[in-house]
């Protein structure tokens, strides 16, 4: 647990439809199981529709926190999409922030139309690296595709967070709370996704 009054601020960021909410839900459930107060603020007005989505997940002891993290106060950023990670970092990161990024781009409408450009992912990650302490690249989508469901990339990324050692929550807690959050039918798949994430960040 860190600065600013005994709390941990995590941002999970991505694009509508990437499963951001589920990802933050898993983290929050694990945190509650460890006795933390949790508040999640989600900016997802039109989450299904290609807009940016970010979840502020705030863990605290003692009392609950507001649903938004103050600027520059994110401890960890989990990026489900590289450009969104940079966007969020610009506002919420500081030189001590740690990040985990899925490098697979999701192109904004204006890029698809050819009106704007999507910079090379390597460049995005390099710039990000100049802003924060660590950038861990985890091929969430590719790993998830490998187990037959690209949509499970969000859970792979949570797995990476679980295995990172950057939260005060034991990795096993993430594994054990998964069944509270995910329907039985797709639990096995997501368990595999979570484990893939844990392994990949430990490599």
């Amino acid at each position: 647990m860190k600065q600013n009054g005994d709390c941990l601020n995590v941002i999970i960021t991505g694009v509508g439809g990437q499963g951001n909410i589920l990802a933050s839900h898993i983290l929050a459930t694990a945190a509650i199981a460890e006795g933390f107060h949790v508040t999640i603020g989600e900016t997802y007005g039109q989450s299904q529709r290609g807009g940016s989505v970010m979840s502020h997940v705030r863990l605290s002891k003692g009392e609950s926190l507001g649903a938004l993290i103050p600027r520059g106060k994110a401890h960890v950023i989990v990026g489900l999409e590289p450009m969104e990670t940079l966007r969020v970092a610009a506002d919420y990161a500081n030189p001590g922030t740690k990040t985990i990024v899925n490098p697979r781009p999701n192109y904004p409408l204006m890029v698809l139309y050819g009106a704007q450009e999507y910079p090379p992912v390597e460049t995005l990650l390099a710039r990000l690296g100049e802003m924060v302490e660590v950038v861990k690249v985890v091929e969430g989508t590719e790993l998830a595709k490998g187990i037959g469901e690209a949509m499970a990339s969000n859970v792979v990324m949570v797995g990476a967070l679980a295995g990172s050692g950057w939260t005060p929550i034991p990795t096993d807690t993430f594994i054990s709370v998964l069944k509270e959050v995910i329907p039985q039918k797709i639990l096995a798949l997501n368990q595999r996704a979570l484990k893939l994430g844990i392994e990949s960040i430990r490599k």
Partner: protein
Amino acid sequence: MLSILLDEPGKRVLMMGNEAIARGAIEAGMKFCAAYPGSPSSEIIGTLARPDVAENFGHHAEWSTNEVVALEAAAGASFGGLRALCAMKQNGINVASDFLMSVVMSGCKGGLVLVVADDPGAHCSNNEMDSRAYARLLDAPLLEPATIEESKEMTRWAFELSEELEMPCMIRSVTRISHARGDLSLGPINRLQRTPRFEAYDRFLSLGTVTHSVLHGKLEKARDIFEKSQFNQYVGPSGAELVIITCGTGWLFSREALRTLGLEDKVGILKLATTWPLPNRFIVDHLKGVKQVLFVEEIDPFMEQNVKSLLADYIGSELEVIKFFGKGSGHVRSRFGPALGEIDPDIVIRAVAEIKGVDYQAQTPEYAERASTLLSEYTASRDLAFCAGCPHRASYWVMKNALALDGRGGFVLGDIGCYGMGAGRSGYFINRTLHCMGSGAGVACGLGNLAKFEFDQPVVAVMGDSTFFHAALPALINARYNGAKFTSVVLDNSATAMTGFQPHPGIGLNAMGNPATQVLIEDVCKGLGFHVEIRDPFKVDEAVEALHDLMQREESSVLILRHTCGLVESRKKKKDRISVNAEKCLGDECGCARFCTRVFGCPALIWNEKEKHASVDEVVCTGCGVCAYLCPQSAIEVEKAEELQR
């Protein structure tokens, strides 16, 4: 098990604000709830309507056709003696306001609670408004929870309050509470068993000044109750020079601001949970000796102005001269300005820092500058778009084509909902008006009735399927009756997609997922005497021709563009695999010049700049196949799901 179902008092669980409100209602023994979906309020009834929830607690839950009907239905249940809940977003209260205005006067029997979820910052709305002004207008008690946990607690309390006062109570939530999640502790469930009965002496009448005066009496009673409410509290040192008066989300933001600035021992916070009528005495007592007051609230300076006018009677007698800060002084301002947009901890930190003359920087200036360069150089804006596979995209393409082919300067009148995006790039900028639900058809009643002034442009009104039932019907009847001529296009994606796929009267399922009488849009329209055509927007050419032909008719007509929302559909079945045959794709050549990516704009279609051809992002693609139909080169190929399985 879903935490809302648990009967384990004391257990700490994670809940979304809206679920917490729903749980509060359950803990209060609520038996009837109704709503029209609208973000950020939808999950309240959405949760209560879940078959497992409704069955377990034995309440009735419904998606009503619109907000006023929802409120009337809930009031009806209350008149019968049950505890009833009605939920809506800020737009909804405008729709419900006529009934609301009189039900506060008539009073009610069973606890009647109205939850309004505002959307500061308009994350999911076309308007930004502060519904709290209604409480004052209505003379109705207003509660503003500040945390997820309070959302539950105060909802439960609101039912008791309503019964004590014999009038409806209003709870105001906001996006950052309704759509936030937090941990809370479950309370006991009130297994209240009431047999509803409309007694011989029951009268619920709104009768002018007489009932108005009764209402004023109730309001004074509410004030007395509020003076003692646990939910109002003061935190901080005694004798503080500066006190923050706050409510709702402002509470935790203010706490964080003081903690961040290290001013917890110097500045006090007076948190109000009952913001109308104000607990006068409570406020005055806590401001003794205070010299500065900062108001922190979301959106309008509602509390700020009410408290200021209250204090005018006390300053110079019981209170010292106070300097006020807040929206009026400009200290509490979002990037749009004061009384605009949502507040956040940084806004409060800045306000307190300014007042106290403290230096605070969220990031060092060099860091902040680097960050802003990165933003401008490396990020592209993410405009909202219809989802991949969305039938609306095809429908808008259909309208664009039909209007061009008609060639008489026709235009489309829109309204809100997903297809409000029809005013933007994703809908080819087709919608030319954007107001409230059903307003496309209503406005068309005017523009479509100007022929005698030599107005000759064809008028098209779009409406969603759910909107059709919500508010478009009176306008359509008006068109028939008063002879307005326009073509209505009903975008029937068989769901209230904008707010999360709630069923509506056209679907044949009720809120709780049980079979319900299906009210077919085409039957209603035919009954009204309209010529009706139904097409699949994915069969673009047929749909274009149908719309074009309807526009040529002398009389008003209705085109139903029917195709299930891609998100609903892709939940149900395995998807077809769509891919681009790079050999055939002409791309930039004279021909389509990148039709699929540059023009049609489905988010699943990507332009491969290096290899100069389009490609399909299989993760985003829903397999709808409309691009394959539209690609002029037939370069997009479909492999059917059935074939893939083999």
